[in-house]
């Protein structure tokens, strides 16, 4: 058992590392998006700042800090300032319970590769990510602008609509794993059938759940084709029309941090987390799980960007009809069929 001091110290070290990695990942997801979308549209993307434009995120960060921050006197100040902070704090916090690998022993201390290993991991992630709605709704209301209000309302209606399907699509996985702990869910997916097909949930009949989750996740994070809240051709920028400089950057970072969280959850729940072939010397075997996990997340982010470069935007009534009339019945059907099959098997 660790003493209280060591426990807090280890937690803080892990938190600092996780924050640095997450914020770097957020910055470079933006770079990746600009680069990939650029190439899809026959452009180059960022090229000027550093080799391949790699220093572009750094330049953007500096620019965000030194930009003039316009706060209209008509806004409701306390909520106007709190909204981006709420968005970003909850977008970052969900990483706290996401495991990235097995247990390791460093300097005689046995610790999981995760900020904290709780047995309610999945519930906490869902709870924290749904708090993000508050940031968006408050930003839209407090900005005192018509576009912001419409964007905020649309965003909150859309996010709550798709949250139902998102939650229901996870129930099949919970039936399979029998635990809320993200680590247990990943452990239940270890091994392979006939040494070829891995026992990931997606190959255990949860393939429909996976696509329901993916669609709902796109809507939850307000990404194309579901980016109605920020539809720039009709709403200027939606709920962050009135925001500038660092406050705008916070909404921006929150969106990309949410994308990364959603990608992590998808890999953990459906694609076997960090499981993958292990080979080579001991140090390579220690690093490979991290690499496989990062590869999955990269794959998801790439799909996100690819979809953005390919699909047009939905109309709002289509979006709502799709969420309530297609995705929700599919999610309920998937849950009932999974329950029946698991019950008949056992």
């Amino acid at each position, binding site marked *: 058992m660790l003493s209280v001091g060591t*426990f*807090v110290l280890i*937690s*803080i070290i892990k*938190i*600092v590392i996780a*924050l640095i990695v997450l914020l770097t990942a957020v910055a470079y997801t933006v770079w990746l998006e600009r680069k990939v979308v650029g190439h899809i549209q026959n452009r180059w993307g960022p090229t000027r700042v550093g080799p391949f434009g790699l220093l572009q995120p750094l330049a953007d960060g500096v620019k965000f*800090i*030194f930009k*003039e*921050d*316009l*706060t*209209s*006197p*008509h806004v409701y100040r306390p909520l106007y*300032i709190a909204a981006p902070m709420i968005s*970003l*704090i909850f977008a*970052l*916090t969900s990483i*706290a319970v996401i495991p990235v690998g097995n247990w390791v022993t460093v300097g005689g201390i046995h610790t999981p590769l995760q900020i*904290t*290993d*709780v047995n309610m991991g999945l*519930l*906490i992630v869902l709870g924290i990510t749904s708090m993000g709605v508050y940031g968006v709704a408050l930003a839209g209301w407090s*900005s*005192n*602008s*018509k576009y912001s*209000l419409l964007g905020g309302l649309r965003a909150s*209606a859309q996010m*709550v*609509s798709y*949250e*139902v399907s998102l*939650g229901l699509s996870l*129930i*099949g996985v*919970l*039936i399979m794993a*029998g*635990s*809320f702990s993200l680590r247990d869910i990943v452990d239940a997916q270890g091994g392979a059938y006939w040494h070829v097909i891995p026992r990931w949930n997606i190959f255990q009949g949860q393939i429909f759940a996976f696509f329901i989750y993916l669609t709902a996740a796109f809507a939850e994070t307000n990404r194309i084709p579901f980016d109605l809240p920020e539809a720039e051709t009709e709403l*200027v920028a939606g709920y962050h029309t*009135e925001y500038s*400089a*660092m406050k705008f950057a916070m909404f921006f970072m929150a969106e990309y941090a949410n994308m990364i969280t959603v990608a992590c959850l998808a890999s953990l729940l459906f694609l076997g987390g960090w499981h993958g072939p292990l080979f080579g010397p001991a140090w390579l075997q220690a690093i490979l799980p991290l690499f496989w996990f990062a590869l999955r997340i990269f794959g998801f982010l790439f799909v996100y960007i690819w979809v953005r470069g390919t699909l047009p935007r939905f109309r709002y*009534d289509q979006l*709502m*009809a799709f969420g*309530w*009339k297609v995705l929700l*019945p599919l999610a*309920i059907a998937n*849950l009932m069929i999974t*329950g*029946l099959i698991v*019950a008949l098997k056992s």
Partner: protein
Amino acid sequence: MPQNYVPIFIFIAVVGVLIPVTLLAAKLVRPDNPHREKLLPYECGIDPVDRARGRYTVRFYIIAILFVVFDVETIFLFPWAVKFKALGMFGLLEMLIFLAILIVGYIWIWKKGALEWV
């Protein structure tokens, strides 16, 4: 273990200090030249017409109510799913009855037109 939840609060505290500090630091270094035209709410270059917080469609309220109904149901299903194997056939039948009632309600709201946007 309950102490495993403590790092989550440490995380919120760290981030909750870091973000306001970033905002304050930006406040110290950025230029500040407010001007009446700059501070107007954005409305495509013209002076704002009418009040910003006008009336909006009642559909948003309906969506909110439907969300509460279905989200409570999701939360109800989560513990059932985790204990699924322990509950066995009895748990499955109970939940199928619950879902059947829910689906009847779902069909009713669909027929009533609560899911239509226009």
